[in-house]
């Protein structure tokens, strides 16, 4: 069943003061099935961040459409966007984006509180999520008191607590050391195994090699894609590396 469908997506940034417009996306099309784990790769300036922002409803496309569960995001009013985001999407960012005025507990609970859930429900939801990410002991701490890996796990907990249809991750391992990064990727794989749909933007081959499918974006279009099939992480890693070499050298 197709969960996310992206059709001919275009985004053009019109320059200020009559500068030349920049075409960040020039017709991107792909789809994501429910339960899939997709990585999107591309170099800086390839348009992958623009794509993610549009999928996250933080930005609107200038052409094409995005459908989540068959519903066109363009039909959402600005005022309904925040609620839509809260109910359907979970986010994990490179820079964690935890609020330094909240403890980890409050950071994780924030989306639920914004959704108007009552205090009793909050505790019930928090416990399993925190336990599965191994941060139960850290909940009373502030973001600046814990390590980067712990911060990112708290951020994942915040993304998951609303039970989102789609988990969007933007370079989730970018600010982590290698050990924390591989821990996080194991968590993602486990979540995907439990049925969570994940879309991750990254330029780390290691991160992408954990996904089931890898899309390559260059100059604003989907240039290529790879499937894991029955292969191991290592095999996918090799395929990705080959593809990137090919992309760079112009085949």
């Amino acid at each position, binding site marked *: 069943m197709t969960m996310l469908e992206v059709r001919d997506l275009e985004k053009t940034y019109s320059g200020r003061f009559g500068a030349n417009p920049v075409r960040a996306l020039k017709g991107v099309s792909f789809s994501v099935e429910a339960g899939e784990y997709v990585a999107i790769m591309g170099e800086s300036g390839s348009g992958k961040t623009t794509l993610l922002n549009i999928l996250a409803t933080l930005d609107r496309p200038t052409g094409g459409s995005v459908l989540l569960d068959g519903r066109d995001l363009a039909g959402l009013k600005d005022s309904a*966007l*925040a609620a839509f985001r809260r109910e359907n999407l979970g986010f994990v960012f490179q820079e964690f984006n935890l*609020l*330094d005025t909240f403890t980890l507990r*409050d950071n994780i609970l*924030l989306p639920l509180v914004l959704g108007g859930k*009552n205090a009793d429900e*909050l505790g019930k939801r928090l416990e399993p999520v925190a336990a599965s990410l191994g941060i139960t002991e850290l909940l009373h701490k502030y973001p600046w008191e814990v390590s980067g890996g712990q911060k990112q796990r708290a951020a994942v907990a915040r993304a998951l607590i609303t039970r989102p249809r789609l988990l969007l991750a933007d370079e989730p391992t970018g600010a982590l050391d290698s050990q924390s990064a591989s821990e996080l990727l194991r968590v993602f794989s486990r979540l995907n195994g439990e049925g969570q749909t994940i879309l991750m933007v990254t330029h780390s081959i290691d991160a992408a090699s954990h996904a089931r499918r890898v899309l390559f974006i260059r100059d604003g279009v989907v240039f290529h894609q790879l499937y894991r099939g029955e292969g191991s992480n290592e095999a996918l890693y090799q395929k990705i590396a080959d593809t990137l070499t090919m992309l760079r050298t112009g085949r």
Partner: protein
Amino acid sequence: MKHSVYARIAAATVRANPRLYVPRVLAEAGLLGCFYILYTLSRDQRLAEALGGSYLPTMMGMGTVVIGLLSGILILYISRFLMKQRTGAYGLYNVLGMEKRHIIRVLFSESLFTSLPSLLLGLGFGVLFYKLSSLLICRMLRSGPVAGFYYLSAPTLLFPALLFLALDFLAFLTGSLSIARMKPVELLAQQHKGETEPRVKWPLLALGILTLGAGYGIALSDQSPLQAIFLFFAAVILVIVGTYCLFVSGTTFVLKRLRQNRRYYYQKRHMPAVAGLLFRMKRNAVGLASIAILATGVVVMLSTTVSLYSGVQDTMEANYPRQLYLSAYQVEDGEIRHVPFDTLQAVVSEAAAEYGLAVQDEEQTDMLTVSYLFRDDTLLTRTEAEGGWDLEELTGAIFITEDTYTRLKGQTYISTDRRRLDLDADEIAFCRIYSTVRSLSEVPETLTIGGKPFRVKETISYFPVSSNMGAMVDVIGVVVADQTVLDGIYRAQKVGYGDYASEYANRIGVSFADEEAVSAVGEAFSQTVVETLRKACPGELSYTLDTKWESFHNTLDMYGTFLFLGLLLGFVCLFSTVLVIYYKQIAEGYEDRARFQIMEKVGMEPKEVRETIGTQLRLQFFLPLATAAVHTAVAFPILLKLLKILMLSNTGLFVLCTLATFAVFSLVYVAVYQLTARTYYQIVH
């Protein structure tokens, strides 16, 4: 050549950051302008002459000291704030290869580029508004305007300019010192200091509750106006300490309590606001407490000065039922001889005729006024008092005979009691004419005067002789049976005080048909009265001439000066408050920007983000205003007592003035809040 590089960098910086530098220039210009006006007022000879022996120059001189201090504090505060904002850029210069001394040169040029316009603008502003101020003063003190247009003199221009230049230089020095002490890595990474969770500082909380409680307790306790003077300052200091302590610890305490209440805290309206405020208040508590205190100061200062000034007329009517009081005596062969009523009357009539004034009516009083210590139902002379005495025991007593009493009472308009007193030689009638220490209803059963006990037969509420003894001490009126009794009292105090003893006085009080006409000739008429009196009584002469118009002039001068100073200082305080708010908002804006972006990403609607920003800002900025309102309300009773000492007892007027002042202050405050909140939103988005 190198010189100009740093200057160019500095100029570019100043131009690129109008949000930071324009308010700084305006602030300094404003302060300098006010300083210039006060300083020049204290030195302007023509004004001093026009006003004639006014309190003004002295008071204005004191005002300059206050404004000078305040300016110093504010200029240093702003420059420290600007340093904080600029630290990142200075760090970058350093990393890019500029040496610290070069950075200091940039800082110097920046200081120069803000200092020079401030000075020019400030002096221009001062010169421009000086004329307006002097006109306002002449109007307020009801004297003719000063001739000539602009008053300009080198010293009054030079001193303020040099002073503010020195302040700017001091600010530059502290700035360069902090640059010299910083390490380049720190210069770059200033922003990311680890914050700790605010903790409730229990000792401060306890101290705050105690001091504020004590301060409020004093203000609300029952005390005499005389005690009020001394207690007021104690209360002010206690309340200031309490305010600081409670802003620092109390806000954290309350917010933490709110956070512990899960049902309250985990709601979308409350959670971001409470958590945000917890950290915000920690950073801003001291600044907000200062705003609260400044605001209270402005309101109290303005409301008291405004009501004093606008109450002058009432005060005069209450204290001067008649327009002129005259008494005189001559010393012949070592004996005191009172100038008889007839002579006094003739003198006033003659002088009045010269000015074409008609005497409407007059009262004659022969009385004895003695200063005693009121202790245990006994009036003691100070020499009789054993073991020293308190200021509060000091009491003025006015003695008249029953004859005088009935005669005066028959003439005066209050005559509710037509029954004769019929006092025996050992009986008196007692009246509390003016009470600052004891309550009006406190009447002894017997009163011992000059060692002799008298039974208080009657308590009377109106005494026909008015007192001009001032309002600092209690004044009582005593009616005795006859002249023999009075003479006994006279002799007793004569023994006690010797050369300093009081004498009988024949005093006449005169009302004129046309009060305005008398006031118009005022001083000249007073002089004519004195000259006529001297002609009528050649030889050594002592006289007391107390006129409503002179008293009015003096009081108006004093209160008008108070008011002008109050207005100017109030303006400067308000100005400072505004400035502190503005810079706080900006600093907050830069810090909060990232936070609100995260909230939007996590699923907060932009409208909700605006709301939670609004809630936090409003709480943060209106807490000081609310505190000021409470402080003012609590201070109200004690202020009323202080005003009573200054002869103002019109409570309604004072309430009105306080409310009006607070309303105006709140309006300005709200306007500033709106303006700065807009800047804040612009920064955040």
